[in-house]
């Protein structure tokens, strides 16, 4: 099994930390992982993305041009990465702020209104975990107990009190995600 994922959105949306928690959870489950961020000034307020690969085998390239799954959190990232999903692959997007909806018919598309839901529940800080929950429902690459360990390892000790909120958000995401059918 090898899953090649791009997570992309605005800087500040928790794109990199979502990827890190996923990757660290993979490490805890004894998978091979890589986490390759875009870095530099573009991260501050601009677009941010991270390529996460989780595999049972030694990982070849940590930098990719085609992905099994794209997790998309803003319009620029949708425009950039929709075409980079492998045929038969998966695209997850949060419709918040999206004006041009995804259109491909050769991939499976899901929408998750994580920003709206996080706002309603007052858990904006863990918005990214709602999205991760939606992804994990569709592709349960890592078991919940390893997600817990991944959170422990990824978050600094002073934030460990937030782990229950993170886990709750993951559950919220699992219920929230739904199939999306592109318009003809």
């Amino acid at each position, binding site marked *: 099994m090898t899953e090649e994922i791009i997570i992309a959105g605005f800087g500040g949306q928790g794109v990199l930390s979502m990827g*890190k928690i996923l*990757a*660290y959870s993979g*490490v805890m489950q004894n998978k*091979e*992982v*890589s*986490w*390759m*961020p875009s*870095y*530099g000034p573009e991260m501050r307020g601009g677009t941010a993305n991270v390529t996460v690969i989780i595999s049972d085998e030694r*990982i*070849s*390239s*940590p*930098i*990719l*041009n*085609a992905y099994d799954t794209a997790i998309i959190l803003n319009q620029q990232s949708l425009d950039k990465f929709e075409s980079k999903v492998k045929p038969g692959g998966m695209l997850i997007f949060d419709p918040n702020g999206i004006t041009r909806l995804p259109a491909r018919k050769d991939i499976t598309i899901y929408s998750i209104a994580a920003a709206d839901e996080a706002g309603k529940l007052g858990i904006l800080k863990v918005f990214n975990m709602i999205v991760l929950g939606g992804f994990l429902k569709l592709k349960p690459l890592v078991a919940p107990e390893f997600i817990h360990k991944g959170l422990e*390892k*990824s978050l600094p000790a002073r934030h460990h009190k937030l782990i229950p909120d993170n886990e709750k958000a993951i559950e919220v995401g699992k219920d929230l995600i739904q199939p999306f059918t592109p318009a003809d």
Partner: protein
Amino acid sequence: MGELRLMKGNEAIAEAAIRAGCDGYFGYPITPQSEILEYLMAEKPYEKTGMVVLQAESEVASINMVYGGAGAGKMVMTTSSSPGVSLMQEGISYIAGAELPALLVNINRGGPGLGTIQPSQADYWQSTKGGGHGDYHLLVLAPASVQEMSDFVKLGFDLAFKYRNPVIIHSDGAIGQMMEKVVLFDPIPRRTDDEIKKQCPWATVGKTPDRKRSIITSLELDPGKQEQVNLRLQAKYRKMEAEEVRYEEIACDDAEYIFVAFGTSARICQKSIELARAKGYKVGLFRPITLYPFPVNPLRELSTKIKGILVVEMNAGQMIEDVKLAVSCSLKVEHYGRFGGIIPTPEEVTENLISKVIGG
């Protein structure tokens, strides 16, 4: 098994330095490698192992602090990225000339000039052909994973002391910034003062009555004597060439064509192999791990069994010169490079192998 962690390549360098028993780190911030100094300052090894960590006023000061520390027998290092490493070249030449052990790290970024902060391999010539003035070589290690970033810190110090020669870890912003699983080696205690004095009788640790004074210098005004210094250095480089070549072959057993690539490019080529083999091409990868000494003989041997080579680098064609020398132009050797901070995709690498080497 050692401790398992998910770490950035830069963090792995820093953690490995502490664990290797490093005595001193001297550095100056520059993207994309500032995490090394940040990690060390956060870890406060000066409270744990006694390792000195100092943010210097410049790369020039950093490398000269390393020169001083190395002359005093200590296990010292600095890290930087391309423009900063250019600034250090005078000091590196002094360290090589004075025959001192030191570990250097270059997390390459695109150039020339201030260039870009994105990954590059454009400093290959600088690392492998000397870099500063005078006839000298660094021993050059090219990690292709975060695991190797950690492992090569220890290996680098071992080789530096074995040869009394500076060793450089030649990496790039992609490996510096990416996170992978690392198995960290168990911490090695720093050497005691007595161990240092025993291991480094040449060091400036204070002249005792039982020995002549230690003088660390690269100056020799008599050209006859200076030539002897050069001959001694060259003999050392021949020994490295005979004993320290390191490389990896991936999927080469049945290969008809190979990529030759190091570092991040070698990782991309591994994916390109998958893509090429899916199309029915028998493709492998030869990955030099020591860029100096370059694995001349293993590559020459492999070249007799294959039909063509694509050298893949994030530069305009630097290592290809060493590849051509190694195979003595006995088969087709082409180059594919992206530069200025652009990383080639696995797909375009495969396409270029097919168009330039297989089909061409």
